[in-house]
């Protein structure tokens, strides 16, 4: 930069590189041209990926962060470009994912005048960002970028948006790239607990005869897997993990109860019903895992460890609250532990595991859980798996077994359809040498499938397994179970020929239609060196169980259709059963 003074856009790109952003996803446009011009001129290390839809860009950055722990950038234009990222930002915000979103904006003089492609993205996104900036001065850029990274990645992580008016990008930036942060109100990791808090937790644990650990995303984000395991093993406490906590405690561990909540295992839910102590490590205890919040662990001592004080008492009032980073809290807690006696409890739970194992039908067509199970065996649970949202997501959670965190990537809080493919692309950019598998439904996949182009261009070997039930399956399941089989707006008639679609993008497309072909097709897909789309023609009518019906407590976990008659073929109309279910 000696003979050439840098403008704001160049300062922004150089700052992105300086703070350590390794990859940016995006699409340019009028207001973002200075940013893209700066990329052309000054970008060195940072990879840029042109996507096909800005929602895809945000999900890719999200998937990248969930696979690596590092934030990526999203670089889009004003108005529609920025607005298209909203779903992706919301998805990241709900799941505490760090991300730097840079949006082009109309020139300063046009702000508020309904200029072409002017959208007030700063205000539009206020409730779904951890923090945001509207830049008014090019000299602020190095400081703002540094702050943005710091805010996105510390404490409870989250997305940060920076709105850059076009003429801020073209103004001279005379500030050096080594800026000082100025964040007087931001204290991300205050230890909000005392030795007494820890002692109270240790005492409660020592007294408990029926304890359960709920491990959540916070445990993953703070890399607390070792401490968590030590806690569970020293005290012999069974562990259940949330959707986003999957793998932070090994699914294969004898103390693992796997998932909990609406589609958790029956034994995990039973453990929460019967426990005398529940300790949540980095789970926010949201409505999808509580059943009826007021009835959740009603008679148990409830201990809540979270880095975000605003999570305490949101739905569940804890007896002991402990604000802090999960790893640090556990490190401080471990020396205080005195093993209790949980032998009887573990025996009871082993009984429940025998009584209510996870299972699925194997006859009468292909079943999604069967495919996941086969994938699990073929990959040894070592592949990175992303999912879309719907039935297939829940089956993936249930039947893919992870022994490590940072491996199962799914939109939890937001439940965003369309997340599966782009997040897999982002994950593959972050972990180029690992197998990345995306489990998607025919509904959600079609929301962002244009990103097949992105996968093809970058020769990303993502393996997409499309569970094609020709339905918005999860909604159909609810209509089947709770709305008297009034299927409304769920038939995906008109699905394209997905194998032809894959071919149109120049990638390998495979059909899987018969159980006998499972090993052959899955192997072929996994061994293929480029992107693959496997269209799996699964049975149209199949429901995810166990299920806690909406509005019901965990006590009411059901293992089959509430009024299922023996021998009732899946999906056949059973008026009496459905009518009865509806009346309840």
């Amino acid at each position, binding site marked *: 930069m000696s003979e050439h003074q840098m403008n704001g856009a160049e300062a922004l790109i150089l700052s992105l590189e300086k703070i350590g952003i390794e990859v940016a996803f995006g699409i340019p446009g009028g207001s973002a041209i200075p940013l893209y011009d700066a990329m052309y001129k000054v970008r060195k290390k940072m990879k840029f990926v042109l996507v096909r839809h800005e929602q895809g860009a945000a999900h890719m950055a999200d998937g990248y962060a969930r696979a690596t722990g590092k934030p990526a950038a999203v670089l889009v234009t004003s108005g529609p470009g920025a607005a298209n990222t909203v779903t992706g930002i919301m998805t990241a915000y709900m799941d505490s994912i760090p991300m730097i979103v840079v949006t082009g904006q109309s020139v300063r003089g046009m702000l508020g005048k309904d200029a072409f492609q002017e959208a007030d993205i*700063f*205000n539009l996104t*206020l*409730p779904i960002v*951890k*923090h*945001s900036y*509207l830049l008014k001065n090019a000299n602020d850029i190095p400081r703002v970028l540094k702050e943005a990274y710091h*805010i996105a990645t510390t404490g409870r992580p989250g997305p940060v948006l920076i709105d850059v008016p076009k003429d801020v990008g073209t103004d001279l930036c005379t500030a050096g790239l080594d800026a000082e942060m100025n*964040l*007087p*109100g*931001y204290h991300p990791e205050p230890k909000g607990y005392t030795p007494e808090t820890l002692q109270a937790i240790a005492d409660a644990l020592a007294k408990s005869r029926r304890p359960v650990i709920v491990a959540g995303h916070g445990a993953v984000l703070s890399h607390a897997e070792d401490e968590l395991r030590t806690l569970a093993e020293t005290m012999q406490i069974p562990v259940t993990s949330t959707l986003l906590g999957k793998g932070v405690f090994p699914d294969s561990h004898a103390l693992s109860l796997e998932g909990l909540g609406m589609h958790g295992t029956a034994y995990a839910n039973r453990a929460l019903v019967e426990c005398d102590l529940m300790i949540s490590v980095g789970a926010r205890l949201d409505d999808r895992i509580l059943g009826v919040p007021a009835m959740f662990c009603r008679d148990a001592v409830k201990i809540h460890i979270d880095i*975000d*004080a*605003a999570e*305490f*008492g*949101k739905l569940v009032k804890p007896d002991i609250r402990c604000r802090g980073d999960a790893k640090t809290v556990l490190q401080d807690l471990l020396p205080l532990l005195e093993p209790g006696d949980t032998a009887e409890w573990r025996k009871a739970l082993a009984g429940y595991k025998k009584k209510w194992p996870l299972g699925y039908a194997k006859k009468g067509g292909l079943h999604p859980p069967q495919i996941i199970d086969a994938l699990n065996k073929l990959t040894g649970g070592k592949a990175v798996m992303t999912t879309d949202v719907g039935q297939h997501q829940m089956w993936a959670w249930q039947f893919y077994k992870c022994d490590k965190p940072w491996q199962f990537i799914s939109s939890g809080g937001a439940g965003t359809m369309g997340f599966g493919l782009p997040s897999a692309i982002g994950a593959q950019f972050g972990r180029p040498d690992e197998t990345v598998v995306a489990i998607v439904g025919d509904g959600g996949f079609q929301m962002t499938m244009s990103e097949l182009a992105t996968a093809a261009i970058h020769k990303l070997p993502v393996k997409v397994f499309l569970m094609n039930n020709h339905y918005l399956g999860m909604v159909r399941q609810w209509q089947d179970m709770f709305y008297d089989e009034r299927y409304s707006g769920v038939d995906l008639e008109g699905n394209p020929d997905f194998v032809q679609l894959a071919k149109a993008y120049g990638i390998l497309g495979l059909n899987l239609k018969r159980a006998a072909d499972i090993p052959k097709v899955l192997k072929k897909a996994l061994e293929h060196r480029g992107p693959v789309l496997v269209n799996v023609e699964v049975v149209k009518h199949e429901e995810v169980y166990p299920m806690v019906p909406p509005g019901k407590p965990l006590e009411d976990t059901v293992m089959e259709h509430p009024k299922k008659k023996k021998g009732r073929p899946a999906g056949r109309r059973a008026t009496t059963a459905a009518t009865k279910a509806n009346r309840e």
Partner: protein
Amino acid sequence: MNKALPTHNLSIYVANRPGALVRIAQAFSRRGFNIESLVVSPGATGDFSRMTITAKGDEAGLEQIIMQCSKLVDVLACREHSDEEVVARELGLVKVAVDAAQRGEVLQIADHFRAKTVDLTETSIVLEVTGGSEKLDAMVELLRKFKIVELVRTGKVIMARGEGET
């Protein structure tokens, strides 16, 4: 459902940045809290603002809001204060339509509340009153017997007593 919800006094010390007010307002509105009054003014040093908010709502909701506000990047402190902990003041301007015959009684009321006459015409009078919100309420109530043309109140500002921090 009809139980009267308590009113809370909140004081928020915030870095003076664009968007800070909206972020705070959203923390209230998203949780169904109605802000009754809101005063924003410069703090003791230039880069910071002091917001005093009174709002109605249940305790659990309030705790959520305090924690949500506290974690905003621009917020340095967000505290609730009971009426006893603080001195609270509000200023009100009341314009009353009065003719010469009524003026005497209006001035008597004003005198009782130590209100100042800040504007006077043949047909109207503007009074300025300072004090606790209840005092303003009481004066306004007495003036209702006349025709109140306009009423403007600043909303409550509070400061912790003694060594307490606002």
